[in-house]
């Protein structure tokens, strides 16, 4: 155990009682009592069905829930494993519920999970979100087996999602990460991952756990680290991803600031990795892909365009310090179009994102203000995407995302030329 990843004494004692295990599944949580029971049962069934011969451990790393989440984790259980076709249930299903320490956020929760996995010498570790409604026992197999049986270090998820779900992923994080580092990891901030012992130890030894990255940007940091530090990566198709209804208290601007801010920070520390990468290579996909029926979603395009239009009038003094004059003029001219004809061209969007990354690099304005001023632009682009794909099927939408990725790759020299060393 590294001195940099201390475990509370009581947790260490409980882990010692469990002894060595082969597979650890971690569930970071905070007030997820309504959904975590289903997740725990899926993990339990997954252990029994796919890893009956292995010693397994479920670790719930909780952020101080007040709704009884830890109690649900302790008591949730599949009443009769035979109903999920488990012939020989495991003798013991170990589970540990522990509060995490350190900065509030998913990163600190995962640090506790990883440290626990290292403490029990786990051969593979998987992480699943606590608010999943669509997780099945197969997810555990799909996240763990590529590590245990095929020797991969990092298993990223692949999902069937509603065409409008994951717009930050589709519009910024996936295409930008792909263009920067040259690997097509489709869900770099998916929330579910599988990790090998080697990657887990490598991540634990990185000096980021007391930083902002560990608080909220942990998913993209893990993906980027796995790519840039040369670990073997694959993707597993998990099926539909359905979360609990979103927390209305989660502010889009805050979310965008955290995710995109982390991507920009990682660009600073991995500049040598992305400057030399050209094009992009596919990443091996595992699992049986199938189409799923997804719940309809509601999109308020008018509100998005309202915010974009207001910003185009009011945020010019801020955007002037971020965007090139030509880009700013083009963005402002978009706001004059009627809703039906509104389109935010991919090229303009990519240039704007790159110019925001450059402004972040040269510290053009306060970081928080810079990232918050990206929100209206993102909403404008998202509204355009919704209008553009209103009648499109999943395949056509994926083609649009692919086109955007190509645009990011094509314009990458634009970023490199302006990036000051």
């Amino acid at each position: 155990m590294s001195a940099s990843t201390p475990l509370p004494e009581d947790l260490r004692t409980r882990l010692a009682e469990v002894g060595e295990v082969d597979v650890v599944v971690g569930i970071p949580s905070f007030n997820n009592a309504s959904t975590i029971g289903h997740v725990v049962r899926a993990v339990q069934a997954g252990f029994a069905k796919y890893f009956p011969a292995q010693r397994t451990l479920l670790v719930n790393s909780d952020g101080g829930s007040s709704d009884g989440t830890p109690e649900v984790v302790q008591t949730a259980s599949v009443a009769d494993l035979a109903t999920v076709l488990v012939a020989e249930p495991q003798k013991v299903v170990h589970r540990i519920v522990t509060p995490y320490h350190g900065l509030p956020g998913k990163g600190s929760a995962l640090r506790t999970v990883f440290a626990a996995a290292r403490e029990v010498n786990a051969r593979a570790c998987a992480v699943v979100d606590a608010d999943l409604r669509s997780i099945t026992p197969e997810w555990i197999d799909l996240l763990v087996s590529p590590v245990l049986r095929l020797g991969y270090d990092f298993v990223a998820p692949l999902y069937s999602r509603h065409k409008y779900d994951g717009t930050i992923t589709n519009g910024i994080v996936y295409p930008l990460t792909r263009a920067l580092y040259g690997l097509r990891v489709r869900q770099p901030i998916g929330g579910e991952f599988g990790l090998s012992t080697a990657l887990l130890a490598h991540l634990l030894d990185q000096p980021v756990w007391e930083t902002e990255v560990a608080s909220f940007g942990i998913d993209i940091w893990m993906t980027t680290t796995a790519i840039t530090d040369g670990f073997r990566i694959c993707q597993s198709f998990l099926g539909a991803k359905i979360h609990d209804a979103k927390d209305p208290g989660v502010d889009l601007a805050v979310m965008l600031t955290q995710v995109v801010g982390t991507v920009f920070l990682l660009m600073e520390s991995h500049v040598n990795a992305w400057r030399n990468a050209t094009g992009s290579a596919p990443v091996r996909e595992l699992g049986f892909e199938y189409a799923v029926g997804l719940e309809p979603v509601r999109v308020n395009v008018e509100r998005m365009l309202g915010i974009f239009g207001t910003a185009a009038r009011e945020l010019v003094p801020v955007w002037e310090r971020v965007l090139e004059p030509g880009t700013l003029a083009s963005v402002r001219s978009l706001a004059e179009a009627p809703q039906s004809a509104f389109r935010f061209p991919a090229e303009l969007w990519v240039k704007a994102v790159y110019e925001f990354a450059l402004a972040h690099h040269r510290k053009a304005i306060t970081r928080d203000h810079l990232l918050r001023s990206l929100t209206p632009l993102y909403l404008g682009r998202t509204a355009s995407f919704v209008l553009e794909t209103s009648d499109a099927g999943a395949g056509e939408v994926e083609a649009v995302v692919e086109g955007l990725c190509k645009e990011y790759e094509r314009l990458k020299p634009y970023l490199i030329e302006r990036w000051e060393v």
Partner: protein
Amino acid sequence: MGATFSERLLGALDVFFEGVMRFLPGLLAGLLIITVGVLAGWVVKAVARRALVVARFDRFCESAGLTTILSRADVRATPSALVASLLFWLILASSLMAGASALRVDVINRLIAESFLYLPRVLSALGILLVGFLLANFLSRAALLSAVNAHVPSPRIIGLVVKFLIAVLAFAMALEQLEIAKSIVLAAFIIAFGAVMLGLAIAFGFGGRDVARRVLERQFGDRGGEDDDDTFRHV
């Protein structure tokens, strides 16, 4: 009589030359101090400017919004040049005062002592104004961004109100620091602040009843049946 005249004349000249001889070293010392001060000021100015450029001080000021404030105040010099000039003038003013005090003239010494006693207050007031204007710009921009992202109507007004209130507060604090009409400044500030708030409340209540209703409904209303919000996930 003649002896008395020559004695008096010589005596007067003695006194004059004695005074001159007593004053001259002080004058020479004062001139020397000022000359050294000017030279030191030039050297410090040149070194400081170079060091600030190397330390990317101008870029820091640009990111902190200070450059914009200066340009709005029609100050064309770069922040590093400005700081270097400030150091030069501080050294020059100090050497002028030190040089003047070398003359050992009571009136000048008293004035210098009094100005030294008041100097900390002037510097504090300038500091308060500088911090106040920086804070006003920073928080005004933060308020503007939050208002735009929250789809609040007329976000610019919110930003301007924040900037105005902080600027007024900083100005009142600076005057209070200078001990200029303390009670009047305090009373004026309370009245101005109260008037702004009351004006905003009345304007919001009467002028923007519909807007107020929409904002309040959005913040506190029953969201159950509302179809205003998106239900898709951004990540």
